């Protein structure tokens, strides 16, 4: 079982604020998931290389060509707040 502090630490890393009830809820649910995957520890993985790609592709690269985006307004109009062409956020300390 995870500790309350562990859950809180993960929540901070993930930038998700949790109420005390949610901390408890996730503590139990995360523990369920971690118990569920416990059997993986039994598999002998010695000398096995981990997967990060299944396609077998290598060296997929594009030519260095630049394209200006046609409708910048369609991008910036999605922002909750802009100021003078900048994205506006609460002060970065």
């Amino acid at each position: 079982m995870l500790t309350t502090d562990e859950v809180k630490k993960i929540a901070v890393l993930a930038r998700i604020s949790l109420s005390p009830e949610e901390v408890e809820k996730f503590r139990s649910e995360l523990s369920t998931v971690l118990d569920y995957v416990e059997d993986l520890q039994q598999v002998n993985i010695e000398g096995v290389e981990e997967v990060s790609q299944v396609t077998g592709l290598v060296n997929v690269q594009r030519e260095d060509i630049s394209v200006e985006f046609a409708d910048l307004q369609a991008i910036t109009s999605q922002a909750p707040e802009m100021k003078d062409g900048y994205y506006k956020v609460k002060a970065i300390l």
Partner: protein
Amino acid sequence: MENAEYKPVIGLEVHIQLKTKSKMFGMAPNKLDMTEPNVNIDEVVTAQPGSLPVANKEAIRLAAKMGLALNCTIDEWSKFDRKHYFYPDLPKGYQISQLDQPIAKEGWLEITKSDGAVKKIAIQRAHLEEDAGKNIHPDGLPYSLVDYNRAGTPLLEIVTHPCIESAEEARKYLEELQRIARYVGASDADMEKGSMRCEPSISVRLPGEVGLPPYKCEVKNINSFKFVEQAIKYEIERQTEMRKEGLVPKQVTMGWNEKLNQTVEQRSKEEANDYRYLPEPDLPPLQFTSEYIEELRGELPELPAAKRKRFREEYGLPDADIENLINWKELTYYFENVVSELDAWILSAPAELSGKTDKRGKLIKSVANWCLQDFSAMLNVEHKNPDESLVTPENLAELVKLIDDGKISSSAAKQVFRAMYERGGDPSEIVGDLGLEQVSDEGAIASVIDVVIANNEKAVTDYKAGLEKSFGFLVGQAMKELKGKGNPNLVNELLRNKLK
């Protein structure tokens, strides 16, 4: 020197922005110096939902070339990883970087210190990543502004081993790294403009301490070589004082404050960094074949270290001149073109000329002077490279020859050069057009000198009485009569003879 036992341990992390047309993982333009915010952006730069990265071939090529230029090993396999942290200038909430399989590993770069000692600075790795945007903090206002123009620019991070022992070594390393980046054509590597950025990590080792000190301080916000040097010196002093008192400095990130001329502790993070690296599933691995590596190696230009050595051997110029030439890759090409013009002339010249060994050296020195002084100054004003100017190497060689032959005086040569720079053309013709030919006719000069001697009895008397200054006065009078075109050597020689 009691301080000598407290040894600084310095490692440098340098980021250089690679000179590509488009971003590292998307097709938005990679242009710096934009006046408007958020214009070099697209769905990839702003991490719109569903957007995906595709690696820029040219960025990878430049990174691998830099690796080779820094004597690194390029492994067959390399891959990208996601490095997670939340910050407004980081659109995806992770930076695509490289964790355990960087493009280049274990290289070195050689520096020559001011005392002449040569040292190899060991490079641990060089890896590719993407730049973040820029946060702007308007003074006194409760908000910040974010501009993503810079976000996604290809960056090469070059990390040294902690083997640097002084601020001077750090500076020499950075200068040489900058030259290499420019020679390779990978980057403008300009600290003031941010296309080269340096974060030194500094600690101070106690006398007798084995291994690395149990802490290090990283310094950020440094935007010139001068400040790197100052910040490192400041930190060494600060930390040495602390260690002498038996204290261990806190492992913190410092910022360089150029107004206070000191490092200032930055707000310490609330949590330890936990970047949760993840192999980037959106990008297949990179494979470097030996053929590709050899192709890149073949494309590398002569690098500063090799050029420096060769210039010393071939041209016998003073070290300072060589350094100044080497700092400007295009100027070295130009310089050598002028020299080869002169060499052709020397070879075809009468035997007694080509036999004079010091002749070539003298001409080469003169070419170097022109390149480094008048020519550089004029080019710098216009932000031009030598090959963009109207002065062809052939023309400059000709000018140097005219001076050497005594056809024009050095002050006239300056006028001729300016004309060559401004409108181009053969210096001999310009000399003719401007009427600047030097008088080297002994008869003509002798008759002028006779007149000067006759008209300046007092000076002649003074000179004969041992007042050397009067000789200068008489030369001046003669030159005035000759309208400045007299060959100064000849004037001197004839005047001395007449006054004997």
